[in-house]
């Protein structure tokens, strides 16, 4: 067990090093950071919402958009670079299980996504704090209630986003395990993200009575097989909400994310076992 853990951690370590050296990672990190930092400049376009909400939404958007692109493209790229460059031949000829290999690739990719989310959440927190201090002074002068944000809520949101990106990365790895080309894995992975964002439609529909058992079966399968990625989008309530979100609700979302991640990595390992290298 310990030896297996060591092998997985070595694969993860090299995968992480490979990923953080990629220009693609740096490019998306810079874009995401620029979006979070520039939100202050765009706050005049707040559509009537509070300034802090606008800044937070801008940051959440960057995290979601660039994080999703990174999770899909980078994860597929890290897998296919091993296949196409045939480094997988050298590694899998060693006493390394295919499941260990795939788990190591996932852990390395997820660690990179963790760095991405942490940097963006840190920058967003700094921007929110700076603007909050300015608004506090203005509110005091005007005798109004100042807007605030929750740093702890932002940390919780960042963790949930990390889990969400982990779910996406695990889905992409499972697809990559059977895909013949990088492009196929990226396109199907991107479609899976879109389907996950729309999965709540299936969940809503299943609650309504239907006369067709086949229709119900399709809805049931869709609502179970695909994770509901929308459930991770509770940033407004966590960061700006006055009442917060109950801890058990956050825990339930985190548990669902962890379960989907484990299930998709397991599925990927099963599929990868049958792949000819």
């Amino acid at each position: 067990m310990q030896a297996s853990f060591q092998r997985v951690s070595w694969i993860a370590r090299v995968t992480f090093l490979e990923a953080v050296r990629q220009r693609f990672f740096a490019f998306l990190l810079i874009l995401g950071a620029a979006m979070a930092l520039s939100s202050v400049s765009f706050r005049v376009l707040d559509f009537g919402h509070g300034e802090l909400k606008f800044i937070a939404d801008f940051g959440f958007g960057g995290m979601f958009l660039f994080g999703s692109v990174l999770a899909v493209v980078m994860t597929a790229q890290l897998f296919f670079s091993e296949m196409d460059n045939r480094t997988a031949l050298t590694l899998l000829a060693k006493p390394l299980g295919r499941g260990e290999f795939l788990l190591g690739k996932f852990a390395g990719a997820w660690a990179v996504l963790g760095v991405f989310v942490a940097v963006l959440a840190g920058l967003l927190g700094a921007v929110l704090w700076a603007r909050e201090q300015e608004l506090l002074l203005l509110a005091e002068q005007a005798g109004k209630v100042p807007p605030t944000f929750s740093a702890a809520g932002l940390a919780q949101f960042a963790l949930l986003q990390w889990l969400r990106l982990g779910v996406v990365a695990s889905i992409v790895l499972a697809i990559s395990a059977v895909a013949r080309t990088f492009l196929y894995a990226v396109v199907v992975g991107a479609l899976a993200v879109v389907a996950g964002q729309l999965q709540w439609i299936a969940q809503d529909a299943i609650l309504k009575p239907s006369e067709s058992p086949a229709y119900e079966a399709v809805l049931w399968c869709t609502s179970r097989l695909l994770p509901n990625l929308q459930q991770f989008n509770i940033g407004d309530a966590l960061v700006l909400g006055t009442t917060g979100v109950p801890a058990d609700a956050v825990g339930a979302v985190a548990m669902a994310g962890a379960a989907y991640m484990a299930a998709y990595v397991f599925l990927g390992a099963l599929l990868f076992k049958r792949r000819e290298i």
Partner: protein
Amino acid sequence: MTAAISVRHLTKDFRVGLRGLKLRAVDDVSLEIPRGQVYGLLGPNGCGKSTTLKIVLGLVSATAGEVSILGCPSATPEARRRTGFLPEAPYFHKFLTGRELVRYCAQLSGVPSADVAAAVEDALGLAAMTDAADRPIGTYSKGMLQRIGFAQAVVHDPELVILDEPTAGVDPVGSAAIGRMIHAMRGKGKTIVLCSHLLGQVEQVCDRVAIMDRGKLVLEGRVDDVLSRRDRHVLTVESMSPAAREAAEATLAAHGAVVTSVTHPRRSLEDLFRELVTGSRDA
């Protein structure tokens, strides 16, 4: 003692195209590779030798037949723990240094943590890569890549080493260095399976050879046995005058022998090259 590799009635079909037509890459191959020998697996491109090796290593599944390594079913972690593999035209993560790569492979191969440093130094020394071990792999020449590939294959001190085209694209000096590594491994009692197109090198280093063609095994045996022509003899003579030659031919004819050719012995171009190009150890 069990064979290093035992292959029985191995067949591999690949499905190609949308209609799933079968392409037979390996066709009912059976062979036994004894322990402690250098074994050459030869054949033209596409003859099935790389597929056979991949099946042996568990990277590809067989359609039919059985393969075992050192008595263990191949494709099990235990079999791979006792095997080292250098793939054809190896490619490694360019950002790692040679030492980092060999350490990485040692960890994956199950070398105990306390022994990793010593095992890495031994493997680098055997591959003559100690001096370049701290350079990134991206700066290595083809020959150095093959040598660092050799080091990662032997870092866990395997009983069986499989080398797929270890000298492809390497100049004769580098090729000779790899030949010396193979000799060193044989000296330690290891079994080496060498897949190569360089027939001269195979002839020099291998004890036994097998030749594959179109997925089938067409010849297998000891190198001396398969190459010797027992009905022909070679005499090498110095300072022979025309008269002496005539006399010798007459004597041989008197005993019923037929002289089919008289030529001057030649060095091989490879020998001449290696004799002239000395000192350059870096291929």
